[in-house]
């Protein structure tokens, strides 16, 4: 067998076409001691992309807290694993499929679901739930509607067919995401094997198995494609989209879990981005060994493929296994029984290289670490101060708005009453019910969904076997408008909100998986946003005791506008958080339960108006068409207290409903509780402030502040409940009113019983539930 001779240097265009920079190419030549061949250049191109090696974000990710009592597996493996006690271990991870979804929404989103599920069951866990976090442009735009409907049906297609319930998520619509949608999918799984399956190859001489589907030319070079800015020419990139097969994936789940239980598997790795290249080099590098792989043994579905195509194909539903020598046939038998491909395609070798054979020749040979671990790193300088447009936006204060009256306010669209404003906010797609979306998802398959979508602030899943009364809650969150206006504070607010959502269903927040969707880090503003947001996430995760167990980075989310100007998306660090429900009989939804129940606001109450702000609020954006001001600052002490109080209230059985105040402030939260419960409410929202303190009605009604939860309790419990609140929260709570005195309306009074808002539930519900559907019908 001949070894590789140095080929001629590549041209600048060829180097750029695989996504590498000239200095990175020089580094490759230095490491190999020769010029790479075409296949090797392609391998470096994908492995040194941001998507695979985090060359821009790794130094920033290092600051995340990653350890804790319950953390069994932190960052670095296919998924994080937390200990739920009683022998129950939960694997979870979030991943983006933004760029594929921009080009082909249906298949892009579908294969996103398939990819994240493989990360979970590669660890030996059975997938039990999916969530997704989606961002699109405005629904008034026809292309956005096409992307949106395509992504939703793609998720439904794959998730429903593979038999894993899609139990929750979030969706925002904002022009900032017009031609660059975000599709982040999170999966949860329960460990089924005694040992957590790792990905480091070991045991020189052990066979390397290729299992799953066949390899074709689909999705060529998806990873380097995912790290390049989108332009009109991306439409021409169309072949770079993979098509998945959920039924084959279902077989793969069962076959893998069965294979792991034999004890014949040393390590496993799914083939996601960068396919064979990524899986071989990562398995070799993590195990400190090498892998020799013979492409002639790989099952293909096309003829005439060259090594470059084998190595970069992103065909779906494929995995690489290292088996104990002599036991490979056991595994092959299992996979064949499930109708899947399984072949011995290579061997673990001592020399720490990835060696690829093709037709009896060495087609590529690269030190494994050069591809997977010892990859380029860029330490960039962060702007010393916020960029100009942020400094300007933050100078905005509510004094610039017209004066409020008890009935309403002058807006750019004319005078609006508070009633009308509430209805408009409920009709805003970002706030409105996402029923049109989740009704397409099978959210009950596996029969473990305890709270249905739209009924609570977080999803709740029963754990099987049901010997324990424990459950798991999960949520994905990110208010990217806050992050845009203040990346540090905004990122902290994201973590706080995720924890609050879990607390609202009665779950103890445990750990975080993050998906960093940002613009171009090579531009000073892009890097500043990324760096500041990471700092915020790190601080918040530390403060709230929820370590980060891994995640995904998606950079270069920018589109080139017709004017030629790059337009970055809002910086969007999506946080997926999982929590433990100690007792599934004590969980809580967001809707009112019964007439006469008393309504309380926990946390930043209306006597502390300085803590509420219109900066970055949905009210300011939707009603006054302004994105400006300083978003709310997180007060961790208060946040922890409010959340703990809410959880304990639920555990004691006192709290009958709990709902976090987020976009649209306290009135939107109250309205949602009315709509969800089908019951009205009478509340008094007059702030009890000193005479000389100025305050605005819009800030009271729609101001956002974090650390706020609206709860309802049985009237008989008023005395113990208030004593409990006084003891734990001091003055940070307020009685707002009661449920259902008016059957049909949400009525907001002032102290002197003047009516500020009187909204019929039927009308609110109509706006809220049809907002998305109405915009999709012509």
């Amino acid at each position, binding site marked *: 067998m001949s070894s590789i001779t140095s080929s001629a240097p590549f041209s600048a265009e060829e180097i750029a076409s695989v996504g590498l920079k000239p200095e990175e190419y020089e580094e490759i030549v230095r490491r190999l001691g020769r010029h790479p061949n075409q296949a090797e250049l392609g391998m470096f191109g994908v492995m040194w992309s941001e998507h695979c090696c985090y060359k821009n974000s790794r130094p920033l990710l290092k600051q995340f807290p990653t350890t804790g009592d319950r953390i069994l597996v932190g960052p670095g493996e296919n998924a994080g694993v937390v200990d739920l006690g009683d022998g129950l271990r939960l694997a979870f991870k979030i991943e983006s499929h933004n760029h594929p979804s921009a*080009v*082909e929404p249906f*298949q892009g989103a579908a294969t996103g679901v398939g990819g994240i599920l493989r990360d979970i069951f590669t660890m030996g866990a059975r997938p039990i739930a999916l969530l997704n976090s989606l961002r699109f442009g405005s629904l008034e735009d026809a292309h956005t509607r096409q992307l949106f409907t395509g992504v939703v049906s793609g998720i439904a297609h794959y998730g429903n067919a593979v038999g894993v319930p899609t139990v929750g998520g979030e969706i925002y619509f904002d022009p900032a995401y017009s031609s660059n949608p975000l599709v982040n999918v999170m999966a949860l799984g329960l460990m089924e094997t005694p040992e957590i399956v790792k990905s480091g190859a070991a045991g020189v001489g052990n066979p390397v198995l290729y299992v799953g*589907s*066949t390899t*074709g*030319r*689909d999705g060529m070079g998806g990873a380097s494609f995912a790290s390049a800015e989108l332009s009109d020419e991306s439409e021409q990139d*169309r*072949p770079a*989209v*993979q*098509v*998945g*097969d959920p*039924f*084959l994936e279902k077989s793969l789940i069962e076959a893998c879990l069965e294979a792991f239980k034999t004890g014949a598997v040393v390590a496993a790795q799914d083939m996601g981005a960068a396919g064979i290249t990524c899986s071989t080099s990562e398995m070799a590098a993590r195990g400190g060994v090498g892998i020799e792989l013979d492409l002639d043994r790989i099952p293909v*579905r*096309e003829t005439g493929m060259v090594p470059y195509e084998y190595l970069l194909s992103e*065909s*779906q539903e494929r995995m690489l296994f290292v088996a104990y020598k002599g036991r490979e046939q056991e595994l092959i038998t299992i996979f064949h029984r499930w*109708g899947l491909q399984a072949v011995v395609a290579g061997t673990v070798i001592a020399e720490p290289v990835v060696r690829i054979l093709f037709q009896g020749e060495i087609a590529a040979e690269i030190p494994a670490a050069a591809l997977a671990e010892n990859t380029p790193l860029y330490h960039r300088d962060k702007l010393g101060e916020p960029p100009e447009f942020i400094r300007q936006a933050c100078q905005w204060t509510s004094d610039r708005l017209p004066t409020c009256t008890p009935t309403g306010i002058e807006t750019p669209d004319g005078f609006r009453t508070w009633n009308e404003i509430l209805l408009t906010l409920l009709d805003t797609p970002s706030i409105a019910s996402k029923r049109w979306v989740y009704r397409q998802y099978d959210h009950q398959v596996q029969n473990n969904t305890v709270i249905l979508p739209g009924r609570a602030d977080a999803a709740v899943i029963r754990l099987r076997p049901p010997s324990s009364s424990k459950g798991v809650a999960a949520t994905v969150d990110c208010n990217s408008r806050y992050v845009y206006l203040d990346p540090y504070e905004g990122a902290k607010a994201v973590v706080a909100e995720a924890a609050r959502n879990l607390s609202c269903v009665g779950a103890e927040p445990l750990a975080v998986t993050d998906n960093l969707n940002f613009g171009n880090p090579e531009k000073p503003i892009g890097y500043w946003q990324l760096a500041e947001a990471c700092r915020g996430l790190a601080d918040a995760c530390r403060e709230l005791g929820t370590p980060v167990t891994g995640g995904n980075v998606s950079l270069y989310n920018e589109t080139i506008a017709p004017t030629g100007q790059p337009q970055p998306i809002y910086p969007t660090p999506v946080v997926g958080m999982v929590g433990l429900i100690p007792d599934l009989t004590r969980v809580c939804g967001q809707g009112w339960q019964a007439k006469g129940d008393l309504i309380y606001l926990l946390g930043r109450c209306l006597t502390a108006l300085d803590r509420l702000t219109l900066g970055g609020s949905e009210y300011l954006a939707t009603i006054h068409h302004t994105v400006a001001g300083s978003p709310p600052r997180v007060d961790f002490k208060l946040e922890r207290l409010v959340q703990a109080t809410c959880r304990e209230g639920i555990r004691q059985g006192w709290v009958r409903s709990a709902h976090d105040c987020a976009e649209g402030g306290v009135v939107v939260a109250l309205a949602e509780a009315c709509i969800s419960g089908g019951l009205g409410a009478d509340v008094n929202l007059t702030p009890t402030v000193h005479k000389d303190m100025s305050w605005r009605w819009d800030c009271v009604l729609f101001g956002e502040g974090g650390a706020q939860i609206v709860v309802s309790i049985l009237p008989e419990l008023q005395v113990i409940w208030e004593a409990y609140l006084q003891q734990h929260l001091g003055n940070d709570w307020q009685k707002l009113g009661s449920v259902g005195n008016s059957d049909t309306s949400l009525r907001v009074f002032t102290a002197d019983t003047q009516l500020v808002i009187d909204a019929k539930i039927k009308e609110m519900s109509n706006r809220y539930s049809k907002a998305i559907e109405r915009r999709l019908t012509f």
Partner: protein
Amino acid sequence: MLRKYQARIYVTLRPSVLDPAGTAVQSGLQHMGYETVEQVRIGKYVELVLSAADEDKAREQVDRICDRLLANPVIENYRFDLTESVDTGVAR
């Protein structure tokens, strides 16, 4: 004066794209004993009638229709035949 044309359109998956339905049919056939069947790829066939000034215009229109709706160019290819249809006078 507009003429009537009939287009017979064939939409097929691009060669690199996985065809789960085709694979299932292939496996079904093999189970039925047709072991000589090596590959099945499933596409769709569309017939449509349109009016246009001349054949070039008709071709142009059908091409756009295929690109924008009938085929998904990301994963599918299409081709079509065009014939001028003779008005039988039966249609109302």
